[in-house]
């Protein structure tokens, strides 16, 4: 408690340095939070598309039920298909009506006859989709094949790029934060060199001298983490209606509060490590034995 009090007093007596330290930490954790949210959101979008039927075969009107069953069985027996779902003309109409229930004009014009029956097929491995698609296209009863592989692979490559950029930016900001913290704590150690010498001469041990500086670093880290997280949560809440509209039908937003609080937990841990490391490095650098 006494170390905390001393650290707090040091912070209050040099508010501009404290502000600079908290500001750079906030930037680091804001970037961390935003990239974590983007990464989590995009991963959810990818897994949504991956879990959905990845190939949809629309049948010709003359296709018989036995022929469709036969095609379905041959695909199931191949061992590469994880699931199939047959959607009859009537079911297709029901789905259409559900999707357009707010637009009576669109409902009036459509009947079950004009909607094709379809078979939705998903595979265990995304690469097998091409094989399934080729097989379906060769069948005489299939009118059209809709294939989502391109969507998924584009999303996957985007997610991967975002992850790489995110890691790079966060690591860069973390390194800059450590340097700035080392400089700020170093300045404070230099300012208190006389006091430190006196304390040592009357019996203060190394840890008694170091501890307030380390706690100061931890306080900067924690402040930065909490403020950065709050800003990112604010941005997320503000953007959620727009993002939900943009990703209509993909149930990703709003993000669950449990994800955000887990993120806060990770950031607090990261802040403790970052704050402790940088201030410990500073006291080792500027406070030789």
């Amino acid at each position, binding site marked *: 408690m*006494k170390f905390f009090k001393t650290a707090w007093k040091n912070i209050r*007596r040099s508010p501009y340095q404290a502000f600079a330290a908290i500001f750079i930490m906030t930037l680091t954790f804001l970037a961390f939070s935003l990239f974590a949210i983007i990464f989590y959101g995009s991963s959810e979008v990818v897994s949504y598309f991956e879990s959905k039927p990845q190939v949809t075969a629309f049948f010709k009107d003359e296709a018989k039920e036995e022929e469709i069953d036969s095609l379905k069985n041959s695909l199931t027996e191949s061992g590469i298909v994880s699931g199939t779902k047959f959607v009859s003309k009537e079911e297709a109409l029901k789905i259409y009506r559900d999707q357009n229930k707010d637009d009576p004009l669109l409902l009036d014009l459509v009947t079950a006859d004009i909607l094709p029956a379809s078979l939705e097929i998903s595979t265990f491995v995304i690469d097998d989709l091409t094989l399934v698609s080729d097989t379906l296209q060769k069948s005489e009863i299939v009118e059209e094949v809709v294939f989502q592989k391109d969507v998924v692979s584009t999303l996957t490559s985007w997610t991967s790029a975002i992850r790489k950029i995110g890691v790079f930016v966060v690591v860069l900001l973390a390194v800059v934060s450590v340097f700035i913290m080392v400089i700020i704590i170093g300045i404070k150690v230099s300012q208190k060199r006389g*006091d430190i*010498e*006196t*304390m*040592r*001469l*009357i*019996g*203060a*041990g190394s840890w*008694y001298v170091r501890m307030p500086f380390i706690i100061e670093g931890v306080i900067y880290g924690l402040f930065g983490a909490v403020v950065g997280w709050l800003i990112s949560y604010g941005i997320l809440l503000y953007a959620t209606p727009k993002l939900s509209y943009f990703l209509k039908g993909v149930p990703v937003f709003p993000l669950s509060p449990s994800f955000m609080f887990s993120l806060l937990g990770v950031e607090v841990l990261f802040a403790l490590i970052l704050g402790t490391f940088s201030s410990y490095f500073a006291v080792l650098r500027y406070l030789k*034995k």
Partner: protein
Amino acid sequence: MIILENVSKKFGTGVYGLTNVSFTVEKGEFAFLVGPTGSGKTTIIRMLIREVMPTQGTIVVGNWNIIRLPGRKVPDLRKKIGVVFQDLKLLPDRTILENTYLPLELSGVSSKEAMKRAEDILGKVGILEHANKFPVQLSGGERQRSAIARALVLSPEILLADEPTGDLDDDTAWEIVNLLKEINEAGTTVLMATHNANIIKKLNKRIIKLNKGVLIGEKNDKDEEKPSASDAPEEQKEQEKKHEVHEHKKTEEKKESITDKFEQALKE
């Protein structure tokens, strides 16, 4: 209580701060460390708390062999010895009470007990009414008393006072000396470095005389002054010669530097 045996200190410049100094201060004794500026008084005090290490010799303080003491034990040694520093070393951003409280905090005394003991000692040195003031708000004598209070708050068996009357007027200096005398009478061993001849003469206590880093004599309170065992005239002369050579060298270097600058200025 305090033993120095053949202690020498050679500084980085090559100058000897102390040469073969040996003396003993017994438990409960009051001794003056006397000598002009630069005679090595402060160096001895700094060695006794292991702020500096001797180049050779042995130093024992209480049960601590200063030379063999491991670095991690130094804080423990310093908690056992009260020191009134020449420049006082009061922390300017802490109140007098907080300054006095600090050694207790370092020793792990509970805050309630520490507060009580700090107030008690401030009362004893007569500055309790200034407890919540900062050092800058006090007079020289009051600051000196604050430093003494801090040195005594852990009830050390040894008190080292480095020129505690240095910047004070005669009356205040006497108040401080009388305070140290009372502390000694209560059982604390006191080693006081000073060059105030008036105080030394009137107090009539043991005197350890130094000059240019050499022990030149000792006088017990009842004895006549006697030359030190290490005070061989040749040795002193040799040390003084070393000092003079160094000073001469410094003056020559200074002269050369000024001449160089002058010549350079003329060329320009």
